[in-house]
């Protein structure tokens, strides 16, 4: 049974054993007093800048390339809504770029359609803003024919999980060596506020005035099901964590899939505040790392494995200690599956980190190796010989 296919009536206390699911896509209710104050205006995410404003004078962190963050900003006005989580992601990526040491001319950003997919226009690198859902196909063709390039694919929850669903699963199984940043805001922003494939059941939007009845995707579980070789989750409001995760995705030789929880302050404001805002973040989010115990709430709580399920344990009462917590192993497909299924649970924190990493050859490397192998075996093809292949005869 998956985490979100139980049919618990809404509003009743769960009678399920620990680790069993909450109703489909239902947002966890917060402990008393921790709710979002009504009418509270969301603060600007770190790194955000209003459209048209010059990039904030943050320390750029000169990288190995000798370039700075400013070298990666294009001359185009950023046209996202003020306060959008996208700004934080753009700022983080621009700050990360110089540190990666990749010559700017070898960097390519490929995107689909949606708010997030305007991203390439703001990067002073090579880039293509393509068509809805198809960025994985363009990125795959580019990387296969140009394995020397460093490709980043930018997409959103609608772009990659709905219209581009077929391509996202196939790029995962192929393991094309590139990075995918999926901005998940659980809403369609650019088309002005319809529910997305990650929106929770019951969501009232312009296209679902009586509430959405669609069962939502759990993106990490989805890509793991498609044999993703690297799957991670981070959030717009924690640029430090985001940068670390993006760095790891970049270092990975294969498809580095990173889901970023991103606030759409216009159509789905506060969708992730439980896990991103200071008041609740430590209780509702767990940041896990390879080789380290799963501990959260400032070290007061941990997660232990009970059979196939994770259980929250109190590390202060004296019954449990850090040694009882699960030590995460990102190379374990089984653990990745268990952790990925911790998805909007009342009794468990939402996990952030690298769920899974599997070293296997990338598609682009293999396709080029095969070409090389054929050339070595048969020699470089001769056009004249090919044309005259097979049975021929001469007319005098």
């Amino acid at each position, binding site marked *: 049974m998956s985490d979100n296919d139980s049919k618990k009536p809404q509003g009743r206390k769960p009678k399920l054993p620990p680790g069993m699911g909450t109703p489909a896509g239902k947002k966890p209710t917060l402990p008393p007093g921790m709710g979002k104050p009504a009418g509270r205006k969301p603060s600007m995410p770190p790194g955000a800048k209003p459209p048209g404003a010059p990039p904030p004078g943050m320390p750029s962190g000169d990288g190995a390339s000798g370039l700075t963050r400013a070298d990666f900003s*294009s*001359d*185009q006005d950023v046209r996202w809504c003020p306060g959008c989580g996208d700004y934080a992601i753009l700022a983080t990526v621009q700050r990360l770029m110089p540190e990666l040491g990749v010559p*700017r*001319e*070898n960097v*390519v*950003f*490929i995107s689909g*359609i949606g708010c997030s997919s305007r991203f*390439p*226009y703001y*990067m*002073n*690198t*090579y*880039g*293509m*803003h*393509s*068509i*809805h859902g*198809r960025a*994985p*196909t*363009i990125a*795959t*063709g*580019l*990387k*296969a*024919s*140009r394995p*020397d*390039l460093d490709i980043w694919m930018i997409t959103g929850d609608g772009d990659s999980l709905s219209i581009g669903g*077929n*391509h996202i699963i*196939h790029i995962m199984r192929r393991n094309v060596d590139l990075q995918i940043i999926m901005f998940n805001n659980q809403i369609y922003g650019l088309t002005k506020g319809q529910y997305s494939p990650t929106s929770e059941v019951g969501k009232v939007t312009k296209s679902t005035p009586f509430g959405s009845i669609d069962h939502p995707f759990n993106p990490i579980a989805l890509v793991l099901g498609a044999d993703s070789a690297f799957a991670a989750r981070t959030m717009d409001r924690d640029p430090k964590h985001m940068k670390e995760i993006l760095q790891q995705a970049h270092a990975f030789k294969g498809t580095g899939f990173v889901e970023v929880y991103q606030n759409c302050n216009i159509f789905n404001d506060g969708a992730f505040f439980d896990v991103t805002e200071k008041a609740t973040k430590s209780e509702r989010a767990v940041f896990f790392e390879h080789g380290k115990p799963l501990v959260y709430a400032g070290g007061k709580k941990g997660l232990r494995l009970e059979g196939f399920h994770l259980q929250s344990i109190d590390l202060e009462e004296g019954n449990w200690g850090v040694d009882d917590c699960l030590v995460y192993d990102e190379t374990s497909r089984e653990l990745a599956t268990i952790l990925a299924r911790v998805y909007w649970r009342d009794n468990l924190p939402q996990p952030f980190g690298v769920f899974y990493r599997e070293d296997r050859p990338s598609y682009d490397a293999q*396709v080029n190796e*095969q*070409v090389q192998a*054929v*050339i070595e075996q*048969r*020699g*470089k*093809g001769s*056009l*004249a010989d*090919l*044309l*005259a*292949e*097979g*049975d*021929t*005869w*001469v*007319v*005098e």
Partner: protein
Amino acid sequence: MPSKTVEILPEATVLFAGDSGDGMQLTGTQFTMATAHAMNDLATLPDFPAEIRAPVGTTYGVSGFQLHFGSVDIRTPGDEVDLLVAMNPAALIVNLDRVRPGGTVLVNSNAFEKKDLKLANLASNPLEDGSLDKFRVIQVELTRLTRETLKDTDLNQKQIDRSKNMFALGLALWLYSRPIEPAQRWLESKFARKPEIRDANLELLKKGFHFGETTEQFVTRYEVTPATLPPGRYRAVQGVQALAMGIVAAANKSGLPITYGSYPITPASDLLHALSRYKNHGIMTIQAEDEIAAIGMAIGASFGGALGITGTSGPGVALKGEAMGLAHITELPLVIVNVQRGGPSTGLPTKTEQSDLMQALFGRNGDAPMPVIAASTPGDCFEVAYEACRIAVKYMTPVVLLSDGYLANGSEPWLIPDPDDLREFDVSFATETNAEVEGKPVFHPYVRDQKTLARPWAKPGVPGLEHRIGGLEKADGTGNVSYDAANHEKMTRLRAEKVERVQQDIKPLEVFGDKDADLLIIGWGSTRGAIEAGVTRALNAGHKAAAVHLRWVHPLPPDLGEVLSQYSSFLVPELNNGQLVRILRDRFLLPFEAMNKIQGRPFGPSEIANKIAEMVG
């Protein structure tokens, strides 16, 4: 041994038909090779069902292979069949209307039992009920003779029965005085590792050949003397092979790596199969997860400085429409191959049609014209593929290449081209900045070449040329996103004008037939052979007519208006419900008469000749 009289024929048409499991395509192919070795000109038409192995003995499982050969110029797979080889009642009934009165019908008489007739839905036996009175019928006990020949082998009954096509092939080779050696050589290499099967097939082939010599049923044997073809080295080539080799030639002459993205679809899959073998010729193939992915991958490759090509059939093009628009607005080189089949929807997957012309010209959102080139014969697929690639790169535009099921699967003798004779294929990538902003050198991706209006092709990896392209409207020059009203109109016109300028590369039209005629026939694509053969027949019958063939359907050749002005009546034959004819009427406002055939089969020359007679006779 009874001596046979030999009758010399200028040309003949043979049709092999049987169950799709009877090996008729193979039999036809081997007869074709023997005919090529006999130095005849030829054209073939394989005709098979969409089902891989439809129930045995049924009419919908009938597979056929038609071959037209002669000492004269052969332009089509033949109007009427001279010899039908039918392996069962279903194959006989399905194809009988194609046999000319007085033609020969050779049947496997062991396959006309009650159950066989029932499978073919026949109430009575056509061998007995008089329905074959118009034809010369030769009954051969193919099954029994095959079993008899192989009775001492270790092959099982099923293997033995499956080999009877070789007996039929041997007999047909004898009947038309074809050499037996090419088929022998083929069997020897094909079954080199299965000596029992090889020997059984070789034995049957020989027995079939000898059977013709000894049986009393044949008093006449035919001979078709060599055709007068231009001198040089020849091979038989199928359209799909020629198309694949044209793509290899483009890679070779341009120095560009080629990335071919494709999703399997009849009848275009063979292009993927062929190209996937050419990895050492600079071709990378990717079998994509769907049609959209296939074109997306090709576009991605083109952005990276390779030439992206995608191949499919009509339903696949429907899915690629949005991405074709992306290639149009990003002005990247791309070739979209459409091996047309009968439509709409799934339509007739294994039958030929020319019904995707409008789709090629207009099947996209927005104003998104692109050059459209169409192949006319199996061998012409080579040149057309090369030309499509060349134009795509020269003008930085997607190009649609139209082939069809008949061209793809049909074959003809092909004078092997010399790679040195191909047109030059120059490629230039942007290497430096081309504009200045506030005193700084910058690269603007939409600054155009004055002659071709092509934008520069800058591949990632070149410092200083970093730029972004995409599906949103571009500002003229800078390529920045622009919603400006006047700019949109300007860019739409510029993109269209660029496509029009492909006219600079179109060779002058050649008029076939009697240039002084009143009637001009205008055709495109695979109907060329039938049209020109039909015109020849009409001229021989004293009916004046001329024909012109369009290789480029968009843009139309610059001299087409001038050619049209020489004639007063016009006929536009097409294997669709009238598509080019509408384009011509719109452009030239002349009285173009449509002639349409929508049966999944090509025109025969007599259909064209009869129409000419009706119009001018």
